[in-house]
């Protein structure tokens, strides 16, 4: 029984580490432009580095028919876009200040971050 309890505690630790503590790999954008594929419940890449004080162009290629995938929201920028299925959907963002900007679908199932530096 002790073993099982220790295993359970370990499992909880793994969950906490994997979903909350882990710092995801960031992908560098090319000249502040990048294509993000929306498929299988995720944005790929989801963590994107962009340069500050320069317009950002994100192209969302939606391959996922789940209704959650339909809208991408940038809450702190008050920008949102409905993504057409099977197409490239371009979102233009204004020049951003240094910081992290989250984006996600309406239900926060799909999540991503723009890391502006």
């Amino acid at each position, binding site marked *: 029984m002790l073993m099982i309890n220790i295993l359970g505690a370990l499992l909880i630790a793994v969950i906490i580490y994997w979903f909350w503590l882990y710092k995801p790999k960031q992908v560098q954008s090319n000249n502040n432009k990048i294509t993000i594929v929306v498929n299988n419940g995720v944005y790929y890449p989801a963590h994107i580095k962009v340069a500050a004080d320069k317009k950002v162009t994100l192209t969302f290629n939606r391959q996922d028919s789940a209704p959650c995938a339909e809208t991408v929201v940038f*809450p702190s920028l008050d920008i949102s876009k409905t993504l057409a299925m099977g197409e490239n959907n371009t979102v233009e963002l204004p020049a951003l200040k240094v910081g992290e900007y989250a984006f996600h679908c309406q*239900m926060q199932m799909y999540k991503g971050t723009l890391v502006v530096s």
Partner: protein
Amino acid sequence: MSNNKDTVQNFIIEGANCGSCVAKIEKALKSVSGAQRVEMNFADRSVQVEGNASSAELIEAVENIGYKAKPMNSESEQDALDEKAKADNAHYKKLMRNMVLALGVGAPLMLYGLIFDMSVTTNAQRIGWFIVGIVTLVVMAIAGKQFYNGAWQSFKNHTANMDTLIALGTGTAWLYSMVVVIAPSVLPEVARHVYFEASAMIIGLISLGLAFEVKARGRTSEAIKRLIGLQPKTARVVRDNKEQDIAISEVLKNETVRVRPGEKIPVDGEVIEGRSSVDESMLTGEPMPVNKSEGDTIVAGSINKSGTLLFKATHIGSETTLASIINMVKRAQNSKPSIGRLADVISGVFVPTVMIIAVLAGLAWLNFGPEPSIAYAVVAVTTVLIIACPCALGLATPMSIMVGIGKAAESGILIRNGEALQTTSKITTMILDKTGTITEGKPTVTDIINFNGSDKVHVLKLAASLESGSEHPLAQAIVSYAENEDITIEKVSDFNAVTGQGVTGRLNGQTLLFGNEALISQHNISIAEAKEQAEQLASAAKTPMYFAIDTQLQAIIAVADPIKDDSAEAIKRLQKKGIHVVMLTGDNQATAKAVANKVGIKDFIAQVMPDDKASEVTKRQAKGEIVGMTGDGINDAPALAQADVGFAIGTGTDVAIESADITLMRGSLQSLGDAIAVSSATIVNIKQNLFGAFIYNVAGIPIAAGLLYPFFGILLNPVVAGAAMALSSLTVVTNANRLRFFKPSKS
């Protein structure tokens, strides 16, 4: 759309296989007149052209050098909608197919379990259940493919979502059952029970819920679909003296367009020829058709009722009023009011939290549960994972906003974003500008009182002749009144406008004077006999003006800005809701008082300079009031911006859409009450959704974990949890859809 300046057009190039093609294609495109910047992306074979070149010419240029080009994302909104409906439909069918497959296996199994026992004791049973287990696995892999795929992908990306929960829940149930079948000896005898039916049923029920949700979601965007549907696909233009039907995107600015009776107006324009009544109700919510003739503006999406109109296109493509309405509504529908923020935070950490709770629940059963504790633990873990649905929480706000803002747009109320909607439902003080808001904003002649034996028609003729030189709105009221009476206006010599007093001039050797008391008394003309009547007029919200010839008073002509028919009723409606209504005006005290009395406003401030309106708003805000300000959107811009919610009120489609938090396309003040009613109803709907989602998750999880078991012996069946998960987000979407039937009551 393809022809206005600074347009960006995108094409997909076919047949370009080498890097060197890029330069060739770019060169060909640049040679097309109007193309300013051309940039080709070889990686995805797309090319972007800036400038006002026609798309047909660009495609031709590419074809001339041996490649093919087809426009990308250039389809009309209507086409995009059709495509989305098609995609939704395909998705719906797929989900229904998955549901049939999963329930087809799950339901008989469940029935069997209810009648017989699903325990594994004999070897024959083991073989039988092993086959069932494999069949279940195949069904899960086919019908639940998207869930497992999604779960794996998001796991790799260190995120977790609904798929994760479904995959873990159904996976746990299946794995445990398979252990029972393959290695029963590791488990106590009483725990040798299989749960294959749960895995299949859960997949089936959730697919069913998602399928219904896809349908219901389609309905939430009905309002925007209706708006998009207002735009016709073709327009009839006059080119080279010939009329031809062309695609709407090909219409050029300043081109002459013809609309026949019963047709929709394709682009915004100015009438050059013809008379007709035009129904703008889909855009403005104003039920009465508007008469249009030469010089009037017409907007895309309205319906030409009676006559044929020839007009000049002034705004095309994305510049039309309809396009900006669609744009604004779309943007607003995707924005969120702060009321949904907590739900966002929770749904952001929801799934890992639920996973931890599931582990804890499993441990609790194993440690303290009755025998067979392992079986109980598996049921509890599966049920906790399945019952919790972050979707309901995440959907609660956006679905209601979508429907509410769309609903408002249908009645000509354009709400900028979710925050404006939320604040509108909380307004405690409403400040109204007088001119153009409570009143029509167009002064008209109300009374003519003659003196010294003068004749009404004669007086009017002279007064109108004199005033025809003046730009003043009061002067225009007199001129148009005379025109309506078919009085011919003559030319006046020595015209002189005295600022703040009136005008003078000469006609047929006589000196004409028209203005206020100051002007008349300066010329030593007696008005003693008229004074009392003038004061009476003033106290009835009218502006009396004196007309004199040479040295003798001839008449008082009174002009007033009539109060809109339903202003008083609309204001009463606001007051009934407990909103304190205030009127501001630049007019004099007497007029202000008279208007305020007529419409039932006790709190009014006269002679307010435009700049002081904003500080009046600030003053009220400082007292803790949540202030709405209603004005015409142009003169009142600073006050509208200062207010918690600025309402720009316009007549029909003239109003500047971008100028305020809420734009009221219909001139009536009733829209104000409607806007507040729609906002309140939407916020109530959001609260219901959030409450439902919270209760469901907050109460559902402990019950699923087995908290009720020690007291009542209740432990939820995983299948019930699956049904609940399917129902929860469906409930939210359906509740939001109820808003579609909302009708603001007039009282």
